[in-house]
Protein backbone atom coordinates (compact mmCIF):
# COMPACT_ATOMS: atom_id res chain seq x y z
CA UNK A 1 0.00 0.00 0.00
CA UNK A 2 1.14 3.53 -0.81
CA UNK A 3 1.73 5.77 2.20
CA UNK A 4 0.70 9.44 1.93
CA UNK A 5 3.59 11.75 2.71
CA UNK A 6 5.05 15.09 1.70
CA UNK A 7 8.38 13.54 0.75
CA UNK A 8 9.44 13.39 -2.87
CA UNK A 9 10.18 9.93 -4.30
CA UNK A 10 13.61 8.90 -2.90
CA UNK A 11 15.14 7.98 -6.25
CA UNK A 12 13.90 11.23 -7.82
CA UNK A 13 15.32 13.17 -4.87
CA UNK A 14 18.72 11.59 -5.36
CA UNK A 15 18.76 12.18 -9.12
CA UNK A 16 17.65 15.81 -8.74
CA UNK A 17 20.16 16.33 -5.95
CA UNK A 18 22.93 15.12 -8.25
CA UNK A 19 21.68 17.39 -11.06
CA UNK A 20 21.46 20.37 -8.75
CA UNK A 21 24.95 19.73 -7.39
CA UNK A 22 26.49 19.51 -10.87
CA UNK A 23 24.75 22.56 -12.36
CA UNK A 24 25.14 24.50 -9.10
CA UNK A 25 28.91 24.14 -9.28
CA UNK A 26 28.84 25.05 -12.98
CA UNK A 27 26.93 28.27 -12.24
CA UNK A 28 29.08 29.37 -9.27
CA UNK A 29 30.96 32.00 -11.30
CA UNK A 30 27.82 33.52 -12.84
CA UNK A 31 26.60 36.89 -11.50
CA UNK A 32 23.07 35.50 -11.35
CA UNK A 33 24.03 32.55 -9.11
CA UNK A 34 22.12 34.05 -6.17
CA UNK A 35 18.97 34.14 -8.36
CA UNK A 36 19.45 30.44 -9.16
CA UNK A 37 19.85 29.74 -5.45
CA UNK A 38 16.75 31.73 -4.47
CA UNK A 39 14.63 30.09 -7.22
CA UNK A 40 15.32 26.58 -5.97
CA UNK A 41 14.99 27.67 -2.36
CA UNK A 42 11.48 28.97 -3.12
CA UNK A 43 10.68 25.74 -4.97
CA UNK A 44 11.77 23.72 -1.93
CA UNK A 45 9.73 25.93 0.39
CA UNK A 46 6.67 25.43 -1.81
CA UNK A 47 7.13 21.68 -1.45
CA UNK A 48 7.40 21.78 2.35
CA UNK A 49 11.17 21.35 2.79
CA UNK A 50 11.26 24.16 5.37
CA UNK A 51 12.30 21.95 8.31
CA UNK A 52 15.29 20.54 6.39
CA UNK A 53 16.22 24.02 5.17
CA UNK A 54 16.26 25.31 8.77
CA UNK A 55 18.36 22.32 9.83
CA UNK A 56 20.93 22.84 7.07
CA UNK A 57 21.27 26.64 7.43
CA UNK A 58 23.75 26.49 10.38
CA UNK A 59 25.95 23.95 8.55
CA UNK A 60 25.89 25.97 5.34
CA UNK A 61 26.78 29.16 7.19
CA UNK A 62 29.55 27.58 9.27
CA UNK A 63 31.17 25.73 6.34
CA UNK A 64 30.61 28.68 4.04
CA UNK A 65 32.44 30.96 6.45
CA UNK A 66 35.25 28.41 6.99
CA UNK A 67 35.70 27.95 3.24
CA UNK A 68 35.60 31.67 2.56
CA UNK A 69 38.02 32.21 5.44
CA UNK A 70 40.45 29.68 4.03
CA UNK A 71 40.18 31.25 0.57
CA UNK A 72 41.02 34.72 1.93
CA UNK A 73 44.56 33.45 2.67
CA UNK A 74 45.59 33.27 -0.98
CA UNK A 75 42.60 34.42 -3.02
CA UNK A 76 40.98 37.64 -4.09
CA UNK A 77 37.46 38.93 -3.27
CA UNK A 78 35.74 37.03 -6.09
CA UNK A 79 37.46 33.74 -5.06
CA UNK A 80 36.08 34.21 -1.54
CA UNK A 81 32.59 34.75 -2.94
CA UNK A 82 32.89 31.68 -5.21
CA UNK A 83 34.01 29.57 -2.26
CA UNK A 84 30.88 30.62 -0.37
CA UNK A 85 28.71 29.99 -3.44
CA UNK A 86 30.19 26.48 -3.77
CA UNK A 87 29.04 25.68 -0.24
CA UNK A 88 25.61 27.14 -1.11
CA UNK A 89 25.41 24.85 -4.17
CA UNK A 90 26.38 21.90 -2.01
CA UNK A 91 23.79 22.87 0.59
CA UNK A 92 21.07 23.24 -2.04
CA UNK A 93 21.75 19.73 -3.35
CA UNK A 94 22.00 18.41 0.21
CA UNK A 95 18.48 19.66 1.07
CA UNK A 96 17.02 17.17 -1.40
CA UNK A 97 19.21 14.23 -0.47
CA UNK A 98 18.90 14.80 3.30
CA UNK A 99 15.10 14.70 2.90
CA UNK A 100 15.36 11.06 1.82
CA UNK A 101 14.62 8.62 4.65
CA UNK A 102 17.16 5.76 4.42
CA UNK A 103 14.44 3.14 4.90
CA UNK A 104 12.38 4.61 2.04
CA UNK A 105 15.44 4.65 -0.18
CA UNK A 106 16.04 0.98 0.62
CA UNK A 107 12.38 0.20 -0.17
CA UNK A 108 12.71 2.05 -3.47
CA UNK A 109 15.91 0.12 -4.20
CA UNK A 110 14.09 -3.15 -3.49
CA UNK A 111 11.24 -2.17 -5.82
CA UNK A 112 13.81 -1.49 -8.53
CA UNK A 113 15.23 -4.99 -7.89
CA UNK A 114 18.56 -3.73 -6.60
CA UNK A 115 20.70 -6.53 -5.15
CA UNK A 116 19.58 -7.29 -1.59
CA UNK A 117 23.08 -7.02 -0.14
CA UNK A 118 23.43 -3.42 -1.29
CA UNK A 119 20.25 -2.22 0.41
CA UNK A 120 20.98 -4.27 3.53
CA UNK A 121 24.55 -2.98 3.78
CA UNK A 122 23.42 0.60 3.23
CA UNK A 123 20.89 0.36 6.04
CA UNK A 124 23.48 -1.15 8.39
CA UNK A 125 25.97 1.64 7.64
CA UNK A 126 23.37 4.36 8.34
CA UNK A 127 22.07 2.67 11.51
CA UNK A 128 25.46 1.76 12.95
CA UNK A 129 26.98 5.19 12.46
CA UNK A 130 24.73 6.40 15.29
CA UNK A 131 25.52 3.36 17.45
CA UNK A 132 29.27 3.69 16.96
CA UNK A 133 29.11 7.40 17.68
CA UNK A 134 28.06 6.40 21.22
CA UNK A 135 30.69 3.63 21.36
CA UNK A 136 33.44 6.07 20.40
CA UNK A 137 32.27 8.51 23.09
CA UNK A 138 32.43 5.75 25.71
CA UNK A 139 35.89 4.59 24.61
CA UNK A 140 37.18 8.17 24.71
CA UNK A 141 35.69 8.68 28.20
CA UNK A 142 37.46 5.51 29.36
CA UNK A 143 40.75 6.80 27.93
CA UNK A 144 40.33 10.13 29.74
CA UNK A 145 39.52 8.31 33.00
CA UNK A 146 42.73 6.29 32.66
CA UNK A 147 44.67 9.56 32.28
CA UNK A 148 45.95 8.82 28.79
CA UNK A 149 46.59 11.93 26.70
CA UNK A 150 47.17 11.83 22.92
CA UNK A 151 49.76 14.65 23.13
CA UNK A 152 51.85 12.85 25.77
CA UNK A 153 51.55 9.23 24.61
CA UNK A 154 50.14 9.01 21.07
CA UNK A 155 50.97 5.30 20.63
CA UNK A 156 49.32 4.31 23.90
CA UNK A 157 46.32 6.52 23.11
CA UNK A 158 45.95 4.90 19.68
CA UNK A 159 46.11 1.41 21.18
CA UNK A 160 43.59 2.34 23.85
CA UNK A 161 41.27 3.75 21.18
CA UNK A 162 41.54 1.41 18.21
CA UNK A 163 41.73 -2.03 19.88
CA UNK A 164 38.50 -1.66 21.93
CA UNK A 165 36.79 -0.06 18.93
CA UNK A 166 37.68 -2.95 16.62
CA UNK A 167 36.69 -5.48 19.29
CA UNK A 168 33.26 -3.78 19.48
CA UNK A 169 33.02 -3.78 15.65
CA UNK A 170 33.72 -7.51 15.63
CA UNK A 171 31.29 -8.41 18.39
CA UNK A 172 28.49 -6.19 17.07
CA UNK A 173 28.83 -7.45 13.50
CA UNK A 174 28.98 -11.06 14.71
CA UNK A 175 25.78 -10.61 16.73
CA UNK A 176 24.02 -8.79 13.93
CA UNK A 177 24.99 -11.42 11.34
CA UNK A 178 23.65 -14.24 13.54
CA UNK A 179 20.48 -12.26 14.19
CA UNK A 180 19.94 -11.67 10.45
CA UNK A 181 20.66 -15.30 9.53
CA UNK A 182 18.20 -16.60 12.10
CA UNK A 183 15.56 -14.27 10.64
CA UNK A 184 16.07 -15.82 7.24
CA UNK A 185 18.05 -13.01 5.59
CA UNK A 186 20.23 -14.13 2.72
CA UNK A 187 22.05 -12.35 -0.08
CA UNK A 188 20.71 -14.56 -2.86
CA UNK A 189 16.94 -14.52 -2.28
CA UNK A 190 14.31 -12.16 -3.65
CA UNK A 191 12.97 -9.72 -1.05
CA UNK A 192 9.56 -8.16 -0.59
CA UNK A 193 8.73 -4.68 0.67
CA UNK A 194 6.56 -3.90 3.70
CA UNK A 195 5.61 -0.58 2.15
CA UNK A 196 5.43 0.44 -1.50
CA UNK A 197 7.02 3.70 -2.53
CA UNK A 198 4.81 5.14 -5.28
CA UNK A 199 5.32 7.85 -7.83
CA UNK A 200 2.68 10.41 -6.82
CA UNK A 201 1.10 13.44 -8.51
CA UNK A 202 3.15 15.61 -6.16
CA UNK A 203 6.33 14.04 -7.59
CA UNK A 204 5.16 14.82 -11.10
CA UNK A 205 4.42 18.48 -10.29
CA UNK A 206 7.75 18.84 -8.48
CA UNK A 207 9.58 17.20 -11.41
CA UNK A 208 7.94 19.52 -13.94
CA UNK A 209 8.75 22.68 -11.95
CA UNK A 210 12.25 21.53 -11.05
CA UNK A 211 13.17 20.59 -14.60
CA UNK A 212 11.62 23.75 -16.01
CA UNK A 213 13.67 25.94 -13.64
CA UNK A 214 16.79 23.93 -14.38
CA UNK A 215 16.26 24.12 -18.15
CA UNK A 216 15.76 27.90 -17.88
CA UNK A 217 19.07 28.40 -16.05
CA UNK A 218 20.97 26.04 -18.34
CA UNK A 219 19.62 27.99 -21.32
CA UNK A 220 20.69 31.23 -19.65
CA UNK A 221 24.12 29.77 -18.86
CA UNK A 222 24.63 28.63 -22.44
CA UNK A 223 24.09 32.21 -23.63
CA UNK A 224 20.41 32.02 -24.54
CA UNK A 225 19.50 35.44 -23.10
CA UNK A 226 22.43 37.48 -24.33
Amino acid sequence: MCKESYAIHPILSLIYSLLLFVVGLLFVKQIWFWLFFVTFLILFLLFRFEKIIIKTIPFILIFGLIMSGLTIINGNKSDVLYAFYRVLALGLAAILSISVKPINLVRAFNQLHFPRWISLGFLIVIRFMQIFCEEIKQIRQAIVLRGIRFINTPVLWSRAFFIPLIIRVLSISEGLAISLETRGFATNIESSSYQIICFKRRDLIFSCLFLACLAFYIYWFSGGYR
Partner: protein
Amino acid sequence: MKKIEFKTFTIKDIVFLAVITAVTLLVSGPIAPIVMTVTKLGTQAFAMALPFALFTSIGLRKVKKSGSLTIIGIFSGLVLLLMAPVMFFNQLIASFLSEAVALILFKSYEHKKAILFSAGLFSFFTIPTTAVVNILVKGRTITEQIGNPLTFILYILGAVVLGFIGAAIGNKISDELEKAGKL
Protein backbone atom coordinates in the same frame (compact mmCIF):
# COMPACT_ATOMS: atom_id res chain seq x y z
CA MET B 1 49.31 -19.48 -13.42
CA LYS B 2 47.11 -18.64 -10.42
CA LYS B 3 43.80 -16.95 -11.27
CA ILE B 4 41.82 -14.38 -9.31
CA GLU B 5 39.05 -16.24 -7.46
CA PHE B 6 35.64 -14.74 -6.79
CA LYS B 7 33.78 -16.31 -3.88
CA THR B 8 30.19 -15.64 -2.84
CA PHE B 9 29.75 -13.19 0.01
CA THR B 10 27.76 -14.43 3.00
CA ILE B 11 25.51 -12.30 5.21
CA LYS B 12 28.30 -12.35 7.81
CA ASP B 13 30.77 -10.84 5.32
CA ILE B 14 28.34 -8.17 4.15
CA VAL B 15 27.46 -7.20 7.73
CA PHE B 16 31.11 -6.91 8.76
CA LEU B 17 32.02 -4.84 5.70
CA ALA B 18 29.02 -2.56 6.31
CA VAL B 19 29.89 -2.10 9.99
CA ILE B 20 33.56 -1.38 9.21
CA THR B 21 32.40 1.17 6.60
CA ALA B 22 30.23 2.87 9.24
CA VAL B 23 33.23 3.15 11.58
CA THR B 24 35.49 4.41 8.77
CA LEU B 25 33.04 7.15 7.85
CA LEU B 26 32.55 8.06 11.48
CA VAL B 27 36.27 8.33 12.28
CA SER B 28 37.01 10.33 9.11
CA GLY B 29 33.86 12.40 9.69
CA PRO B 30 35.45 15.32 11.56
CA ILE B 31 38.06 15.86 8.80
CA ALA B 32 35.80 15.37 5.76
CA PRO B 33 33.70 18.56 5.87
CA ILE B 34 36.79 20.75 6.26
CA VAL B 35 38.48 19.44 3.11
CA MET B 36 35.32 18.67 1.12
CA THR B 37 35.17 21.95 -0.77
CA VAL B 38 38.92 22.64 -0.97
CA THR B 39 39.75 23.16 -4.64
CA LYS B 40 43.39 22.01 -4.58
CA LEU B 41 43.69 18.54 -6.06
CA GLY B 42 44.91 15.87 -3.67
CA THR B 43 43.91 17.62 -0.43
CA GLN B 44 40.94 15.32 0.21
CA ALA B 45 42.95 12.19 -0.59
CA PHE B 46 45.75 13.32 1.73
CA ALA B 47 43.36 14.03 4.60
CA MET B 48 41.38 10.79 4.24
CA ALA B 49 44.27 8.41 3.53
CA LEU B 50 45.09 7.36 7.10
CA PRO B 51 41.63 6.53 8.52
CA PHE B 52 40.39 4.93 5.30
CA ALA B 53 43.47 2.73 4.90
CA LEU B 54 43.49 1.71 8.57
CA PHE B 55 39.90 0.48 8.74
CA THR B 56 39.68 -0.96 5.24
CA SER B 57 42.79 -3.04 5.86
CA ILE B 58 41.13 -4.53 8.97
CA GLY B 59 38.01 -5.17 6.87
CA LEU B 60 40.09 -6.94 4.24
CA ARG B 61 41.92 -9.02 6.84
CA LYS B 62 38.58 -10.32 8.10
CA VAL B 63 36.88 -10.78 4.70
CA LYS B 64 39.65 -11.99 2.41
CA LYS B 65 37.45 -12.27 -0.66
CA SER B 66 38.02 -10.56 -4.00
CA GLY B 67 35.60 -7.65 -4.26
CA SER B 68 35.60 -6.78 -0.53
CA LEU B 69 37.14 -3.34 -1.05
CA THR B 70 34.72 -2.54 -3.87
CA ILE B 71 31.86 -3.44 -1.52
CA ILE B 72 33.29 -1.06 1.11
CA GLY B 73 33.52 1.56 -1.67
CA ILE B 74 29.87 1.00 -2.66
CA PHE B 75 28.64 1.28 0.95
CA SER B 76 30.64 4.39 1.77
CA GLY B 77 29.72 5.87 -1.61
CA LEU B 78 26.02 5.28 -1.01
CA VAL B 79 26.16 7.11 2.32
CA LEU B 80 28.22 9.96 0.86
CA LEU B 81 25.75 10.11 -2.03
CA LEU B 82 23.30 11.69 0.41
CA MET B 83 25.81 14.43 1.28
CA ALA B 84 27.79 15.05 -1.92
CA PRO B 85 26.47 12.97 -4.85
CA VAL B 86 29.75 13.02 -6.77
CA MET B 87 31.49 11.26 -3.87
CA PHE B 88 29.65 8.05 -4.78
CA PHE B 89 31.51 7.75 -8.07
CA ASN B 90 34.71 8.88 -6.42
CA GLN B 91 34.54 6.11 -3.79
CA LEU B 92 33.34 3.43 -6.19
CA ILE B 93 35.97 4.05 -8.86
CA ALA B 94 38.81 4.47 -6.36
CA SER B 95 37.97 1.26 -4.49
CA PHE B 96 37.60 -0.66 -7.74
CA LEU B 97 40.91 0.58 -9.17
CA SER B 98 42.78 0.00 -5.94
CA GLU B 99 41.39 -3.51 -5.61
CA ALA B 100 42.07 -4.29 -9.26
CA VAL B 101 45.73 -3.27 -8.93
CA ALA B 102 46.20 -5.36 -5.76
CA LEU B 103 44.46 -8.41 -7.23
CA ILE B 104 46.32 -8.23 -10.55
CA LEU B 105 49.60 -8.14 -8.63
CA PHE B 106 48.83 -10.66 -5.87
CA LYS B 107 45.73 -12.61 -7.15
CA SER B 108 44.13 -12.87 -3.70
CA TYR B 109 44.02 -11.28 -0.25
CA GLU B 110 45.74 -14.28 1.37
CA HIS B 111 48.99 -12.32 1.12
CA LYS B 112 49.29 -9.42 3.60
CA LYS B 113 51.03 -7.32 0.95
CA ALA B 114 47.88 -7.45 -1.19
CA ILE B 115 45.87 -5.95 1.68
CA LEU B 116 48.58 -3.33 2.26
CA PHE B 117 48.47 -2.36 -1.42
CA SER B 118 44.71 -2.42 -1.77
CA ALA B 119 43.92 -0.41 1.38
CA GLY B 120 46.99 1.81 1.08
CA LEU B 121 46.24 2.98 -2.45
CA PHE B 122 42.49 3.52 -1.92
CA SER B 123 42.81 7.25 -1.20
CA PHE B 124 45.43 7.78 -3.88
CA PHE B 125 43.04 6.49 -6.55
CA THR B 126 40.42 9.09 -5.59
CA ILE B 127 42.75 11.76 -7.04
CA PRO B 128 42.20 10.97 -10.77
CA THR B 129 38.44 10.69 -10.23
CA THR B 130 38.37 14.02 -8.38
CA ALA B 131 40.40 15.60 -11.21
CA VAL B 132 37.95 14.33 -13.86
CA VAL B 133 34.93 15.46 -11.79
CA ASN B 134 36.47 18.92 -11.32
CA ILE B 135 37.06 19.24 -15.07
CA LEU B 136 33.55 18.08 -15.99
CA VAL B 137 31.56 19.74 -13.22
CA LYS B 138 33.53 22.80 -12.15
CA GLY B 139 35.23 23.43 -15.48
CA ARG B 140 38.62 23.72 -13.77
CA THR B 141 41.66 22.80 -15.85
CA ILE B 142 44.27 20.38 -14.53
CA THR B 143 46.82 23.19 -14.09
CA GLU B 144 44.27 25.22 -12.11
CA GLN B 145 43.56 22.23 -9.87
CA ILE B 146 47.24 21.38 -9.34
CA GLY B 147 48.30 24.94 -8.52
CA ASN B 148 51.82 24.77 -7.18
CA PRO B 149 53.37 21.53 -8.61
CA LEU B 150 55.55 21.01 -5.53
CA THR B 151 52.56 21.15 -3.17
CA PHE B 152 50.67 18.77 -5.47
CA ILE B 153 53.54 16.25 -5.47
CA LEU B 154 53.73 16.53 -1.68
CA TYR B 155 49.96 15.88 -1.43
CA ILE B 156 50.21 12.79 -3.66
CA LEU B 157 53.24 11.44 -1.82
CA GLY B 158 51.52 12.22 1.48
CA ALA B 159 48.35 10.37 0.41
CA VAL B 160 50.39 7.31 -0.62
CA VAL B 161 52.63 7.33 2.45
CA LEU B 162 49.78 7.95 4.91
CA GLY B 163 47.74 5.28 3.10
CA PHE B 164 50.48 2.71 3.54
CA ILE B 165 51.07 3.77 7.16
CA GLY B 166 47.34 3.41 7.86
CA ALA B 167 47.22 0.00 6.18
CA ALA B 168 50.32 -1.11 8.11
CA ILE B 169 48.73 -0.02 11.42
CA GLY B 170 45.53 -1.83 10.42
CA ASN B 171 47.51 -4.97 9.66
CA LYS B 172 49.32 -4.70 12.99
CA ILE B 173 46.02 -4.35 14.88
CA SER B 174 44.63 -7.31 12.90
CA ASP B 175 47.72 -9.40 13.82
CA GLU B 176 47.11 -8.70 17.51
CA LEU B 177 43.42 -9.54 17.18
CA GLU B 178 44.27 -12.71 15.28
CA LYS B 179 46.67 -13.77 18.04
CA ALA B 180 43.93 -13.13 20.59
CA GLY B 181 41.57 -15.26 18.48
CA LYS B 182 39.17 -12.39 17.85
CA LEU B 183 39.55 -12.00 14.09
